[in-house]
Structures are given as structure tokens and as C-alpha cells.
């Protein structure tokens, strides 16, 4: 079942006619900023979907539109087959915004209790769930009675996640869940997302930490300047083909280096070690022959596959060269 | 220490210079303001601005009025009113009553302060008129106007006009219509007094409170007495004008004056008492006890017969004695053309001793017989005491009464007789009451 679907979703911001920029008055004629341009997306049930892109690509905008924080200029979207704003659907969704701000005068348990009431959960169920969640997100026990004012960034992120999971949602939407966290925190988020996935939930999140996304996503969509530049299953987008090899040799003679230089794309000398990037099997064979002939010692040989980051950079820089013209405002 | 860097010091110095300059300028301005004293007149209290103030008060006009009221009280409080300040105070009252037209005490107090104390009755009455317009259903303000017109301005017609307005008020008390009616009568104040005390007396009877009814009755009788005395005083003045230099020898001489002969309205106390008694009995209550009225003129059988006849014919008996106050009062008024009857047991007599003011004694020659006898007794007593003192001092009896007193002894005898002094026995007697027994006291020398 398609859980999230957008159809030509667009969001265009109209600037004020008169604005002050760089200390000077500026008159804007038809100055529109396109945050999203006719976005088409589909997320199936049970997937973990990553919405990726550089800053300002429109990831947060998409999520905010889905959650009803912003209204689209044109186009439509559906959650769980129902149009946006459906309350019943919302009771099956959990949402964690980017850099969340919460009522800082509430204590930890009060905070979750409040949201629980908004879900319509009865008191007993709320109390039980709050305890479970505190364990799940690994918040210390004393945090329960501590006002949110006293929470650290990591703790806030955790309790934010807790409120997103409060109602045992089918779809969990996370906006930059790893922003501002240390590597340990990021790992914990990754673990939680994976565990959610294993429970059969759909996870839809945006991120610009591509390495992590690579690890946990089934499907990704890459946005740039409001346009969808790539979308699909990760393994389809990133061919399994080996792109190049990275070899480290030592005690190699200059002659041997010269020979290898012909077939290597990158040679870096570091003390006694030489780092080579070989982009064909032929080049590898040459290397192995050289080493087997006794010229140098092979320390490591690593095949490198296409990484998401490289794919991403490729797509993004490609695209930005094509976009040179202004786009007119589309009617609402 | 970093704060005291050169830059900061410079800024500090410049700052104080600026402050110094601005403060000195302001001082000069303020001094100019305090020299002008008439600021009250100018700001905020001329005609239209009270309206503006009321709008600015945003629905809290009652509080604004209260604050202005307090200010007004304070502004004339201890100092009293002087000619200079009355105008601003008048404006304050004016503005105050514009903002809160229902503040009754502002009108009445303002009238008292501006009119009575300040002497500007016209402006006081302006306030009264304003109050009458804004409080059309209350009696107090026009009543004050009536009071001022009558007693201070001596304008009966104006007083009557205010009185009529007051009477129409919804909360006009019962006594008001009567009081307004009195304005037509010359001896109005006595009507008021008698009416008032009659009310107290009846109330005491109705509520069976002995203290109140006894007091009320005594004051009622006293008021009737004073009323009678005022009539006779008028007759006396007429007599003295007609016979200059002469005094009446007896009270009956006054009966020939026009004041008495042409007829005057007066209360007959015995009739009144008889009436009250009869009504009480008809209301199945106890009548007036003998103990209660023993000091006053007792109603006669004729009075009771009259009371009976009157209560059967003209009344519709209401259930309460106090409701009948009006009727009782009116029925007790009679027109007499001879001397008034004393409400006390003894009749009115002439006591020449008090015909002229003598060394502290008031000029009150008309009194009850009982009082006259008392006067005689006390005079004799004091004479005999003086003689005793003389004897102790001089060791002999005085030859005549002139020796006892510092001045020539010219006090007339209360009954018009003579003082008889026997210088052998040292006893003074009255020619008219030669065998008067003096009350128990010190023995007066040898009994003669």
C-alpha cells in the first residue's frame, strides 16, 4: 500500500514587493522563491525512505506540507490514502520536527502525558506507554521529573523521538533526526530506525548525513532546489559495480611506481607508503604482477563501490548546471 | 578599574553636564508655573472637558468621580472657604456632577459649602437645580433647596416651589408634605416641632417602648408649651407697643390684644391626649396610663366625649397608630381667641419678676402657676439664707432688705405683692402667701 504520495506538489513563496537587501531598497517584480516544484513521490508501506538533499532543497518543506504545517501552493498529497489534514490518519503518524522546541516548563512525564491526551489515550495506557518510551529512547529515570528546560540537546532529541512513538504509529516521519548529535547519538538513532523498520513500520525521514542514510534506507529521493533529481531503491541507484580499487603498497621501486602510474588515476606518497587508485581490473592485475615479481609489498587492496555521497554530488552538480533560467510563478 | 578608562570618564562628564543643564532649565520653567495660581480654573474643569474626562475614563467614571470628590473635599477641608477659592471649588463640584450625575451627596454638600459657608447662594442653588434635574425622583436635593430658600434667603415663594418638587419625589418621607405646608404658616417651626415629637410619641406607643414614648410625650408637651409661649410673646409685644412703658399686671391683660382676640391656631394638648387614648382603646390596646400623664394637663370628660365623637365619624381606622399621625395632628388643632391652655396642670400666669432681665435672669414673665410658686419659694429661701449670713457676719439682724443686697433691692414679688420683712425676727415673708411653708432646710433664726 502506498503510505505517502505526493502529486505535483509545489510550494512557491512570494516576496514582498519592496524589500531591503544589503542595506538598499530593492523592488521585487515577480520575485518568487520556488521551494518545491511539482514533486512526485511515493512511499510504500514498510519501507524506510530517505529524503535527501543539500540545505534549502525543500526537504523540510515537503515534510511540513505533509504534516499540515504549511499549505502547498498547488498539487496535492495523500497520507495513507487520505488527503492531508485527516485527523484519523494523524493518530497513526508520529512526527519529530527538526531542532524541536518544546514547552520547557513541562516536566518530562507531563510533556509526554500532554501529547498522550492529544492522541486520546486513556490515563492508564498513557502512564504505561510513558514508562516504556523512557526505556526505549534510553532517557535516564530522573529525567522524568525534570523540566525540559534542563535537558541537554541529546535528551531533547530523545524525548522528541519518544513523543513521535507515543501512539505506536504506522508511519514515523522524522525531519533531520540526527542533527546536532554526536556519533554515539547518531548510532542510537540509526538503531532505533532499524528497529522500527523491523517492526513493520514505515519510516520517512530527511537527512543530509548521507553515510548514515546509506546504511538504513531502502529507498531514497534526492532533492535539489525544489526539484526531484533522483528517486528509487538504493540498490538500483547505486550499481553494485565496482568503480575503482584502492591499493596501498610499500617498498616499491620507482620503476614499479612509474609502471603503475600508467594505469592508476591517483597516486599519493605518504612516507614509505604509496596509495594508488586503480580504475580497472587490468590495472589491478598489473599491480599484482608487480608485487608478485617482488617489487614492493601489498598492504591493502580495497574495491570501492559507488557511494551515495558521490552519486549525490554527481546528481546535484549536474543538475545545477542545467538550471540557469528563472521559472515563472505558477498560479495557485 | 577598566570602567574608568578615559573614554568612559569623558562620557560620564558629558552626561552630567547635560543633566545639569536640562534640570536647571526645567527648574526655571517649574518656578514660572507655580507663580500662576489660577491653574484650577484653566485646566480640565471648564465646561466641555468634564465630558472629555468621562469619555477618557473608559467606563470607570464612578472611580474618577470618587477621586474628584476626594480632591474636592481635601481642597476646602481644613482651611474653610475663602472668597478667593470658592470659584475653583464650584467648578470642581460642577465637573464632578457632570461625570457622575447621580452622586447625591455632591449636590447637597456642594450647596452647603458654596452656598451656606461660602455665601454664594446663587451658585449653591445652581448645583441644587442641576441635582434636581439629574435626580428627579429623590427628595433630598430639592429639600435642601427649600431649606436654603426659606431660612437663608428668606424667599418663601422659592422655598415653596422647591418644597413642592421635593414632595413629588418617590422617596419623600411622610413628614415632608406637612413641612412644606408649614411654609405657608408663620409659626411654621412650632408645627414642625410638635409634629416631629408627636411622631416619636406615637412610635413609642406603637412599639411599646416606654423610654421612647415617655421622652416623646415630654418633648411633645414641651413643644406645645413653647408654641403657646410664642403666641403670648407676640401678644405681649403688641401690648407693649400699644401701651409704651407699661407692663401687664396680670396675664389676662394680654387677652385683649388683637393677636389673641382675632383668633389663632394652636394645639389643644388635652384633646390630643384624649384622642390618642381613644384610638388606642379602639385598637384594642391599653390607653394612656394615669402614671404617664400625671405631670401634664389631664383631658376632661368633655375632651373624651369629643374624641369619641370624632373617631366614629371622620376616620377610617387604619391598623397602625403611626399612620394616624396626620389625622391626630390636624384634629388637635383648634382656633382659640382667648389665652392658650397650658399643657401642664397649672395655667399660665404673669410673673413680674421676670418681666425685665435682671442680673442674669432671663426675660420670661409668662410661665405656669406651678413655676411661679416655685420661684417665690426659692426667692424667699435665698433671702432668708442671706439674712442668716448677714447675722453671722455682722452679729446683728439687718434693718431692711436693702442692707442685704449690694444694689437697691427692687425685685418685684412674683404675685405682684410685697416682700414683708420683720427686722426683729429676721424673717422675710410674701404678702400674698404669708403662711407659705418653706421646704425643710436650715432654721431661720427665731420663728416669728
Amino acid at each position: 500500500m502506498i503510505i505517502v504520495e505526493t502529486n505535483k506538489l509545489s510550494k512557491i513563496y512570494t516576496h514582498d514587493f519592496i524589500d531591503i537587501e544589503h542595506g538598499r531598497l530593492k523592488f521585487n517584480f515577480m520575485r518568487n522563491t520556488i521551494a518545491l516544484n511539482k514533486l512526485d513521490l511515493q512511499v510504500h508501506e514498510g519501507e524506510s525512505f530517505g529524503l535527501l538533499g543539500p540545505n534549502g532543497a525543500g526537504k523540510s518543506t515537503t515534510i511540513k506540507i505533509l504534516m499540515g504545517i504549511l499549505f502547498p501552493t498547488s498539487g496535492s498529497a495523500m497520507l495513507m490514502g487520505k488527503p492531508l489534514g485527516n485527523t484519523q490518519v494523524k493518530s497513526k503518524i508520529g512526527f519529530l520536527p527538526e531542532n524541536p522546541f518544546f514547552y520547557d516548563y513541562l516536566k518530562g512525564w507531563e510533556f509526554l502525558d500532554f501529547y498522550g491526551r492529544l492522541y486520546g489515550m486513556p490515563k492508564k495506557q498513557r502512564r504505561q506507554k510513558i514508562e516504556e518510551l523512557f526505556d526505549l529512547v534510553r532517557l535516564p529515570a530522573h529525567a522524568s521529573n525534570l523540566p525540559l528546560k534542563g535537558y541537554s540537546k541529546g535528551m531533547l532529541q530523545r524525548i522528541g523521538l519518544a513523543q513521535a512513538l507515543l501512539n505506536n504509529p504506522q508511519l514515523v516521519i522524522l525531519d533531520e533526526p540526527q542533527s546536532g548529535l554526536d556519533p554515539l547519538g547518531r548510532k542510537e538513532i540509526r538503531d532505533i530506525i532499524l528497529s522500527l523498520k523491523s517492526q513493520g513500520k514505515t519510516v520517512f525521514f530527511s537527512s543530509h548525513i548521507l553515510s548514515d542514510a546509506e546504511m538504513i534506507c531502502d529507498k531514497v529521493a534526492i532533492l535539489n532546489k525544489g526539484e526531484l533529481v533522483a528517486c528509487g531503491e538504493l540498490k538500483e541507484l547505486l550499481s553494485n559495480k565496482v568503480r575503482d580499487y584502492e591499493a596501498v603498497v610499500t617498498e616499491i621501486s620507482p620503476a614499479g611506481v612509474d609502471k603503475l602510474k600508467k594505469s592508476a588515476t591517483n597516486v599519493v606518497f605518504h612516507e614509505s607508503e604509496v596509495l594508488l587508485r586503480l580504475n580497472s581490473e587490468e590495472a589491478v592485475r598489473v599491480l599484482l604482477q608487480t608485487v608478485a615479481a617482488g617489487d614492493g609489498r601489498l598492504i591493502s587492496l580495497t574495491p570501492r563501490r559507488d557511494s551515495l555521497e558521490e552519486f549525490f554530488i554527481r546528481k546535484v552538480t549536474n543538475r545545477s548546471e542545467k538550471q540557469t533560467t528563472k521559472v515563472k510563478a505558477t498560479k495557485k | 578599574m577598566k570602567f574608568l578608562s578615559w573614554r568612559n570618564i569623558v562620557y560620564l562628564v558629558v552626561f552630567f553636564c547635560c543633566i545639569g543643564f536640562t534640570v536647571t532649565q526645567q527648574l526655571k520653567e517649574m518656578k514660572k508655573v507655580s507663580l500662576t495660581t489660577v491653574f484650577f480654573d484653566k485646566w480640565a474643569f471648564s465646561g466641555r472637558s468634564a465630558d472629555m474626562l468621562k469619555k477618557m475614563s473608559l467606563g470607570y467614571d464612578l472611580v474618577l468621580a470618587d477621586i474628584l470628590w476626594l480632591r474636592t473635599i481635601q481642597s476646602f477641608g481644613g482651611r474653610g472657604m475663602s472668597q478667593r477659592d470658592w470659584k475653583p471649588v464650584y467648578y470642581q463640584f460642577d465637573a464632578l456632577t457632570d461625570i457622575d450625575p447621580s452622586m447625591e451627596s455632591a449636590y447637597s454638600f456642594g450647596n452647603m459649602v458654596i452656598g451656606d459657608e461660602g455665601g454664594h447662594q446663587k451658585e449653591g442653588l445652581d448645583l441644587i437645580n442641576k441635582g434636581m434635574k439629574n435626580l428627579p425622583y429623590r427628595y433630598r436635593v430639592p429639600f435642601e433647596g427649600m431649606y436654603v430658600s426659606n431660612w437663608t434667603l428668606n424667599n418663601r415663594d422659592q422655598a415653596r416651589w422647591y418644597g413642592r418638587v421635593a414632595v413629588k419625589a418617590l422617596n419623600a418621607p411622610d413628614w415632608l408634605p406637612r413641612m412644606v405646608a408649614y411654609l405657608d404658616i408663620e409659626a411654621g417651626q412650632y408645627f414642625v416641632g410638635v409634629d416631629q415629637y408627636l411622631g416619636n410619641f406615637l412610635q413609642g406607643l406603637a412599639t411599646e417602648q416606654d423610654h421612647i414614648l415617655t421622652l416623646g410625650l415630654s418633648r411633645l408637651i414641651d413643644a406645645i408649651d413653647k408654641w403657646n409661649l410664642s403666641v403670648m410673646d407676640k401678644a405681649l409685644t403688641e401690648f407693649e407697643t400699644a401701651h409704651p412703658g407699661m407692663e401687664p399686671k396680670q396675664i389676662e391683660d394680654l387677652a385683649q390684644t388683637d393677636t389673641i382676640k382675632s383668633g389663632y391656631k394652636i394645639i389643644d394638648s388635652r384633646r390630643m391626649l384624649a384622642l390618642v387614648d381613644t384610638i388606642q382603646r379602639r385598637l384594642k390596646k391599653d390607653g394612656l396610663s394615669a402614671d404617664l400623664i400625671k405631670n401634664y394637663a389631664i383631658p376632661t370628660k368633655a375632651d373624651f366625649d369629643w374624641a369619641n365623637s370624632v373617631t366614629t365619624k371622620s376616620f377610617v381606622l387604619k391598623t397602625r397608630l403611626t399612620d394616624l399621625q396626620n389625622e391626630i395632628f390636624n384634629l388637635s388643632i383648634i382656633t382659640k381667641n382667648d389665652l392658650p391652655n397650658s399643657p401642664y396642670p397649672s395655667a399660665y400666669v404673669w410673673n413680674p419678676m421676670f418681666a425685665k432681665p435682671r442680673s442674669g435672669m432671663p426675660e420670661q414673665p409668662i410661665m405656669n402657676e406651678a413655676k411661679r410658686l416655685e420661684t417665690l419659694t426659692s426667692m424667699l429661701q435665698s433671702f432668708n439664707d442671706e439674712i442668716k449670713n448677714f447675722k453671722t457676719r455682722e452679729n446683728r439682724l439687718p434693718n431692711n432688705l436693702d442692707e442685704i443686697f449690694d444694689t437697691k433691692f427692687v425685685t418685684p414679688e412674683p404675685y405682684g405683692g410685697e416682700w414683708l420683712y420683720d427686722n426683729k425676727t429676721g424673717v422675710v415673708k410674701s404678702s400674698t402667701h404669708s403662711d407659705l411653708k418653706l421646704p425643710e432646710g436650715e432654721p431661720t433664726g427665731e420663728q416669728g
Partner: protein
Amino acid sequence: MNKVLAVALNTFREAVRNKILYFLLLFSMLIIGFSTFLSDLSINEAQNKLIKDIGLSSIDFIGFLIAVLVGINLIYNEIERRTIYTIVSKPIDRPQFIWGKYIGLLITVYVNVLIMSIVFFSVLYFRDSTAPDAIQKHFQDAGETVTSSSFAYYWFHVKALFISAGKGIATIFGYSEQITHHLMRVVGMSMISLAVITAFAILYSTFATPTLSAVYTFLTFIIGTMCNDIVRYADTIAKNANGVENLVGVAYLKYKLVWLGALLVPNLELFNKRRDAVYGMWDVMENPIPNVPIDGVTIAYGIVYAIGVMCLACLVFNRRNFK
């Protein structure tokens, strides 16, 4: 409905932490206390008129201040601090959220108004029971003579204090003596006008910054109390033209617009029953017992108006994009 109450309770919790609330409450106590001193300066025969005037007015005005100063931040802060993001994602409608905010603010205002009223009534009862005649009567009945420095005198006052406080609380629930007859009705009507003002505060808070909201709400309050004067202004326009029929062109338009304005703005003077409480059946009695006539239609007007304004607020809020 439960969700609306959850938001309301949360709003109340947030409002209670606002320090300004306590300053305003303290200020109103000071005013009521001060009015007792002021009343001694006055020579009014009217018993306690000054205290009643100042007390009732300050309850009304401080209630207004609380509604404004706490209310202007409510919606705006939610949007600015982005705490609204998580709310909107929950199964709660935007209108439900706004209504929750409104009810929470209303509860805050009402709780404070009731506290101020209790103090006010207690002061009145205390003054009534410790007036010189009352003291005289009390001690005479007991057959004691007392001087102002004796223990019995102070004990009498202490007892009176506690009894007055108790009676003050009871007055909220309908108890009344002559001195506080119908005063609770005045406070009740005042509370309805506060409901209208609070609705406006919420409305403005949905789209304006706090300062602007405060200014708008204050202006609304001023216009509301001057509603009757607006009509009079229209009448003067007509009078200047010698009659409504003679109005032409611009003047006619002005007249119609002014009348339209008078019809639309909230007539807050309708809820000002302070004059009735102080002057009562002034027309008929010597020392009137206050009579505050309560009109069901007026109450309905207030409530319906507040609901209307809240609907407008919901409309505005529904259309808002939260940046």
C-alpha cells in the same frame, strides 16, 4: 473535547508561570486596600461607596490587563518557538487547538478575577463588621466595656478577619449580605465582557506580534466602551444636517458607516453594571439596596459575540502557514 481541555490545562499551566500575573494580582490587592484608606477621607454618607467603586473597577480593569498581557503571547509564542509543529502533527484540529488556548486563557483570567473578588468581598465584610457602631453594639450586648487597646478589642478584629474571609469565599457561590447584595452579579457580567476581550486577544495573537496585539486589543476595548458615543456621534452628524433625510453624499456615507461601526463593535458598556450596584434602586428608596438587573439577552449577546470572534480566529489560524 478532552483534547481541547488538555490544551486548555496546558495553557493554564503556562500562564500561571508568567510572573506578570502575580504582579497584577498584587497590584489589585493594593488598590483595594488603598481604597479603604481613601474611603475614610471621604465624608460620604453613602456607605462604602468608594470601596465598591474602586474595588469593582479594579477587578474589571486588572482582569482586562491579565487577558491582554497573557493572551498576546499565547499563539504568537507557539508559532515563533515552533512548539506548534508537534501539536499540528497530532490528531487535533487547528480550531480545537485555538479553542483550547482560549479556554485556558479564560480560566486563568477567571481564577484571578475570583481571587480578587474574594479579597474585595472580604474587605467589605470586614469593614461592615468592624464599623464603630457594630463594635459598640457587640460589646454592649455582651455587657463589656472595652478600650481600643484591650485584648478583647484585638481579638474581635482577628475573629472578624477570619469570618470575613470565609464569607468572602461564600459570596462567590451566591451568599450575600446587604453590603454585598448583587455585587457578585456585577462581577459576573464583568466576566462576560472579559470573555469577549479575551477572544479578541486570541484573534489578534493569531496574526500579529505581541506588541501590536496589545495595541489592537486595547483599541478594541476603548472602542467597545465608547460604543454609545459612536451612536451619539452619528446623531450629531444627522443633527447638523437637520435630520437624517437631509444627509447627502459624503455625509450620508459617513452616517451609514458610523452606524455600521456602532452595530459591529462589541458594546462593552452593556456589561458595566457597576453603576447599578452602587446606586441601586436609587429612584425609590432612601438607602437603596443595590439592584442589578440581569438580562438573559445581554448575556447571550456577550457569549455569542465571543464565539463569533473565536470563529474568526479559527478561520485566520486555519489559513496560516507556520514558517
